[in-house]
């Protein structure tokens, strides 16, 4: 009897390993292995043609000291993230709060707002390149309706990053949908309780809505960091880094180093530094979380 149970357990474990094996193999072969290889590669100079040359920390030195574009592209990307992430957060929440009332056509409006969030890639980049066109584009047409002469958005060093931010806001519905679901999950008793105390709308928002929404905000912040650090297609299609490298996003620069200049070692350094930046930013959000993210379960236990 005991022996049979054991074999049953063993068979289950065996099946467990077998069924998990696609991921395990993939993790070792396509994630862990390449990560280590990339770390090793970062100590070499290699163009895939002539034999690889060991240069130690040479590539890192290149990144921090000799190459003016590496840190520049990192700054550009961070500047973009710093504009885009808070705007997405604030606008997403405001829209969700407006929608989270018994207004008619809620699901229709939600559909409309969510639609652009599923569109991505070259086609969208093409569309926005046309919208930003200085003389015949949609944006400057709208501006002309209110008597403003719009700039050459993508051709202007000051306006090119805000242009990308504006374009990304087209997909604000993606976050909105998530915030809306979060708002709908807040129990109405909470509001009723403070309404008895005569709380104002502002206080309700500050003491109930935002704390209850904070886990969702937290998650969205992290996703925002990860995705905005990896912008590529838009920049590649719409400006190719220009004008004068003003939109040289980090991934675009990495792509050039790896696949245009064939600097495999240096590109590995770029990849690792991007990874570390994302990690640091994520950790920062995580560490700050205890100060502002409210988890219901925690306080109930305490």
């Amino acid at each position, binding site marked *: 009897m005991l022996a049979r149970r054991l074999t049953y357990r063993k068979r289950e474990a065996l099946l467990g390993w077998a069924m998990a094996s696609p991921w395990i193999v993939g993790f070792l072969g396509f994630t862990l292995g390449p990560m280590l290889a990339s770390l090793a590669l970062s100590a070499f100079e290699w163009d895939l043609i002539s034999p690889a040359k060991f240069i130690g920390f040479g590539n890192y030195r290149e990144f921090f000291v000799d190459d003016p574009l590496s840190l520049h592209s990192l700054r550009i990307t961070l500047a973009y993230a710093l504009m885009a992430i808070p705007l997405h957060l604030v606008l997403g929440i405001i829209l969700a709060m407006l929608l989270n009332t018994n207004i008619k056509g809620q699901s229709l409006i939600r559909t409309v707002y*969510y639609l652009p969030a599923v569109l991505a890639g070259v086609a969208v980049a093409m569309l926005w390149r046309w919208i930003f066109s200085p003389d015949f584009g949609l944006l400057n047409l709208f501006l002309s309706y209110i008597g403003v002469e719009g700039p050459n958005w993508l051709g202007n060093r000051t306006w090119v990053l805000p242009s990308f931010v504006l374009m990304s806001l087209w997909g604000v519905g993606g976050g909105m*949908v998530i915030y809306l679901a979060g708002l709908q999950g807040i129990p109405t008793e909470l509001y009723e309780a403070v309404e008895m105390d005569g709380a104002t709308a502002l206080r309700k928002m500050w003491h109930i809505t935002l704390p209850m929404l904070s886990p969702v905000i937290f998650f969205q912040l992290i996703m925002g960091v990860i995705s905005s650090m990896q912008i590529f297609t838009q920049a590649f299609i719409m400006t190719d880094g220009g004008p004068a490298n003003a939109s040289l996003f980090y991934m675009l620069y990495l792509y050039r180093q790896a696949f245009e200049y064939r600097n495999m070692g240096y590109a590995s350094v770029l990849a690792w530094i991007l990874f570390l930046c*994302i990690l640091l930013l994520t950790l920062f959000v995580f560490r700050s979380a205890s100060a502002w993210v409210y988890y219901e379960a925690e306080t109930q236990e305490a």
Partner: protein
Amino acid sequence: MTMHSEPAPSAAPPRLLGKRNRATLHNVLAYWILGWGSLFILSPLAWMLSTSLKTRSQIFRFPPEWIPEQFLWRNYLEALTLLPFDIFFMNTVFITGLSVLGELTSSAVVAFSFARLRWKFRNALFMVALATMMLPRQVTLIPTFILFTRVFGWKDTYYPLIIPSFFAVPFFVFLLRQFYMTLPFDLDDAATIDGCSRLGVFWRIILPLAKPAVAAVAIFSFQFHWNDFFYPLIYLFDKDKFTLALGLRFFQGNYGTDWHYLMAASLIVMLPVILVFFFAQRIFIQGVVYHGFK
């Protein structure tokens, strides 16, 4: 506005803003903002359609007309025949189809193991899988590129775009596992007592019940691979092997100011995703919401 002609707050002398009035004011404000927002959301698509139906000279006219005098539907035919878009389309369908299939099957199987089978290191490995969700793909990009092109000799083939899909996607494993976990374990026990094997439990009971989650994963996967530009860009060189995304970029290079053609072609490329979105909207939104919470 006549829309809001609700009965006025009854008898009592009107205070500055009664509760009812405040609600109405909120609604008016909400409609006003959401309405302008909808305009911002929809106008690019309308503009795209409008441009795609114009002649070349109509495009470069200021101020432009929203509705062209004549709808030039043949722009679409011309745009699509300037380059072999039919081939690009078939290539994209092929790559996307196999990738979705691979990601779906492998992730569903792996998720079952993590959710319902007991084995050593299971939880530890699941944590590792979760951690890799945060990993940007760039860290593995260059070595995998070298592995695929130099070691395996897969340059200019579809293998690097398809084969990795069969090794499960952590995010999908996570989504499916969470869904499997919500199904009662009594189901497994009952089926096992009736003589169903573990695999049978997976195939006959869990998977059919997990249809909503599987559908969400299928849609996410489709959306990603259909729109993907980066991987085809680094792995494919022969024009006959191009995907729609690559074709569109090539198109831009050759007909960069023929906006009517560019918009027509772009709209066609977007269309499948838009269609899937409209038909599977609920699954889409539920899936997104679900992942937004964890």
